C-alpha cells in the first residue's frame, strides 16, 4: 500500500501523455474497425430489418455523423455512408409526407391558412430530404464512380449491384425531393438522365424490373428523354410484370410516381392496385428486401393517402391500399328474390 500513491501518479502521467500525443494514432484502427463492422454487419442488418422506421430515423440519424467523422482520419466509409444518408433522407421524407397530408386535409376542410402553412412545412422537409439524398448520391459516386462515365462501374458482388440499384432510385428521389421543395436545394436535374443511362448496367430481370421502371420514370419526369416510339406506360407494365414474378413492389412504386407526375389518374390507380396485389400475393419477397420494401411502401401509402384525403379528409384505411374511396371492393351481391 505504501507504493500505491506513486504508482497512481505514474499511471496518471502515462495516460495524460497518451491523450495529449498518442490518441490520434488510435483513431485510424478504430475507424477501420468500425467502418468494417458497419459495412459487414450494420448495412446487411438494416437491409433486412423489418422495422425500417427504426432503420431510417434511428440508425440513419444516429450513425450518420459518427460514420462520417471517420472520413477525417481514414478513407471515407462511403459504402456505409451511402446507406446512412439514404436512411436520413427517408426519415426527412416521412416528415414531409406527414406535413403534406395535413396540408391536403386542411385543404379538403377548407382551412386555407393552415393548408398553406403545412405546405411550407412539407417543403422544408422535402428540402432536407433532397440535401440528405444528395449526400447519399455523393457517397455512391465516390464509391462506384460518376454516373456520366462511359463505362459501367465494376459491381463485384450482389450487394454492390443492390447498392447501385438503390442508389439510382435515390438519385431520382433526390431530384423529386428538390422539385417538391420548390427547388430550394438546386439538385442538378441532369442527374436523372444520368441515372437513366446507368440503369442499363443492371440486369432488368435479376433486379425485379427496377432498371426498366427507372428508365420509364425518367421519361415521365424529363420532357423529351424518351427514345422515339417508346411507350412509358407499356414500359411500366412490363416492369410491373417482372416485379410481380419476384414479389417486389418497387417498380410499381416508380410506376405510381410517374403516373402521379403526369396526372394520369387511371394509371396511378392501376399501379397502386397492382402493388397491393403483389403485397397480398403469396410470392415471397426477394432477399434482402426490408429496406427496399420500406422505400416502396412509404411512397405507395403516401400516394394512396393523397387520393383518400383529397376525397374523404382521412387517409387510407388499414388494409385498403389498392382500393379507393367510393369504390366497392366486391362485386355487388345478388339480393334479388331473397326477401
Amino acid at each position, binding site marked *: 500500500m505504501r507504493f500505491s500513491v506513486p504508482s497512481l501518479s505514474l499511471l496518471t502521467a502515462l495516460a495524460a501523455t497518451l491523450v495529449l500525443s498518442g490518441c490520434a494514432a488510435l483513431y485510424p484502427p478504430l475507424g477501420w474497425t468500425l467502418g468494417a463492422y458497419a459495412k459487414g454487419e450494420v448495412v446487411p442488418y438494416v437491409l433486412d430489418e423489418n422495422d425500417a422506421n427504426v432503420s431510417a430515423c434511428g440508425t440513419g440519424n444516429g450513425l450518420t455523423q459518427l460514420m462520417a467523422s471517420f472520413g477525417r482520419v481514414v478513407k471515407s466509409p462511403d459504402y456505409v455512408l451511402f446507406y446512412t444518408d439514404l436512411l436520413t433522407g427517408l426519415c426527412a421524407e416521412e416528415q414531409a409526407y406527414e406535413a403534406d397530408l395535413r396540408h391536403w386535409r386542411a385543404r379538403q*376542410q377548407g382551412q386555407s391558412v393552415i393548408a398553406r402553412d403545412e405546405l411550407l412545412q412539407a417543403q422544408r422537409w422535402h428540402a432536407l430530404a433532397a440535401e440528405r439524398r444528395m449526400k447519399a448520391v455523393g457517397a455512391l459516386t465516390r464509391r462506384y464512380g460518376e454516373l456520366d462515365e462511359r463505362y459501367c462501374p465494376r459491381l463485384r458482388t450482389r450487394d454492390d449491384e443492390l447498392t447501385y440499384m438503390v442508389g439510382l432510385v435515390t438519385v431520382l428521389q433526390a431530384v423529386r425531393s428538390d422539385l417538391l421543395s420548390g427547388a430550394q436545394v438546386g439538385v442538378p436535374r441532369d442527374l436523372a438522365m444520368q441515372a437513366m443511362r446507368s440503369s442499363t448496367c443492371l440486369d432488368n430481370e435479376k433486379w425485379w424490373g427496377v432498371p426498366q421502371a427507372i428508365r420509364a420514370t425518367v421519361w415521365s419526369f424529363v420532357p423529351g428523354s424518351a427514345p422515339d416510339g417508346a411507350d412509358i406506360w407499356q414500359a411500366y407494365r412490363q416492369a410491373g410484370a417482372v416485379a410481380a414474378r419476384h414479389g417486389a413492389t418497387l417498380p410499381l412504386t416508380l410506376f405510381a410516381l410517374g403516373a402521379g407526375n403526369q396526372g394520369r389518374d387511371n394509371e396511378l390507380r392501376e399501379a397502386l392496385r397492382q402493388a397491393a396485389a403483389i403485397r397480398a400475393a403469396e410470392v415471397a419477397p426477394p432477399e434482402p428486401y426490408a429496406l427496399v420494401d420500406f422505400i416502396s411502401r412509404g411512397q405507395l401509402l403516401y400516394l394512396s393517402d393523397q387520393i383518400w384525403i*383529397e376525397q374523404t*379528409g382521412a387517409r387510407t384505411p388499414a388494409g*385498403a391500399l389498392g382500393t379507393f374511396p367510393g369504390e366497392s371492393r366486391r362485386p*355487388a*351481391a345478388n339480393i334479388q328474390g*331473397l326477401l
Partner: protein
Amino acid sequence: MLKKLTHAALLTGALAFSNGAAAMVDRTLCVFDVVGANGDTYQMMKQYVLAAQQWGVNFKLKPYTDEALAKGDFMAGHCDAVELFGIATRSILKFPGSLDMMAALPTYDGLNTAIAALSAPNAAPLMKDGKYENAGIIPGGKVYLFSHDRNTLDDWEKLAGKRITVISEDEQAVEMIKYVGGTVMPASVSTFAGMFNSKSADLSYAPGFAYQALEMYKGLGENGGILRYNLGILTFQVTLHHDRFPAEFAQQSRTWVYDNMWDVGMRVVEQAEAAIPTKYWVDLSADKEARYNSMFSDVRQRLYDADKVYSRRMQTMLKTIRCRELPDNAECTRDTEGGPAI
C-alpha cells in the same frame, strides 16, 4: 379539378356541420368484446362511432367483457345501443338475430349476400321489432368444432357420448347435440374456452379467433384437431332503442356498416384463421361431409318445425342463398325449411 373538389368538400363540410349542429344527440353504445376495450370488435366500433356523427349521434363507447351484462344493461335501458353476437341478439330481434343459424351459409360470400339483403332499404320493416331495431351487421368468422382428440371429428356419429360446451341461448347447438347423442355442457362466451382447456369438456365449438385470443391451443395439445367444416358464421350486430335515435339513423347505419365494415371485419377473421397451425385442421372426405350436411339439414328442419326461437323467414332466405351456392345439395329440391330452393 382540384378546385372543384375543394369547393365540393367545402360545401359538404358546411352541410354536415349545419345538420350535425342542429340535431346532434349524445348516446351510449355498449360494446361486448371478450378482450375488452383493446379488442378487435371495440376497435371496429371506434370507426362506427365516427360515422354515426354524420347522422347526428355522438356515441360514448362502453366496453363489456361479459355479453350477458351488456345485454342486460341494454334491456334495462342503461345503454341506448348495444353490440352483441347475433346469437345473443336473437331474443331481442328474432329476424336479424337468426342470421347466425347453424351451418346455414357455407361461405363468407354467402354471408355477404345475406348482410347485403338485410341492409337494403326494402328489408327495413324486418329489421325492427317493438322498441328495438338493428343498426348494422359485421362478420365475426366461421365457427369450427375443436376436439382434444382429432380422431373423433371425421364422422358426426363419433360425437355420441361426448361432452360438448354450449353457449347459453344457443338452442340450435342444444338441438344438434341432442341429435348426435352428446352431452350438453352449459357455458358462456367467457367460460367455454376454459372448460375446453381444462378438459372438463371434450369438444367446443368456437370461431377462429378463439384459438389465440382464448388460448384454445392449450386444450388442443398434441392430439387435438379442428374440423374444417363450417358450423355457422358468427356476426356482430348493433341493436338500438330506436325511439332514442333520429328517424333515419338505423337505415343510414345499416347501409354504412355493410359498405364500410365488411372488409374491416373480414380482415380480422382472415388473420385469426391464418394463425391456426395447419396441423390442427381435420378435413372431411366428400361422403363424410355429405353426412354432416344431412345431419345439420335435419337439425335445422326440427328447429323450423318447432318455430320457437328462429325466424322462419330468415331460415328460408339462408336456404335460398345456400342453394344458389351449392345447387347440387340434396336439400335444395326438398320441401324443407320453407320449401324447395330451386
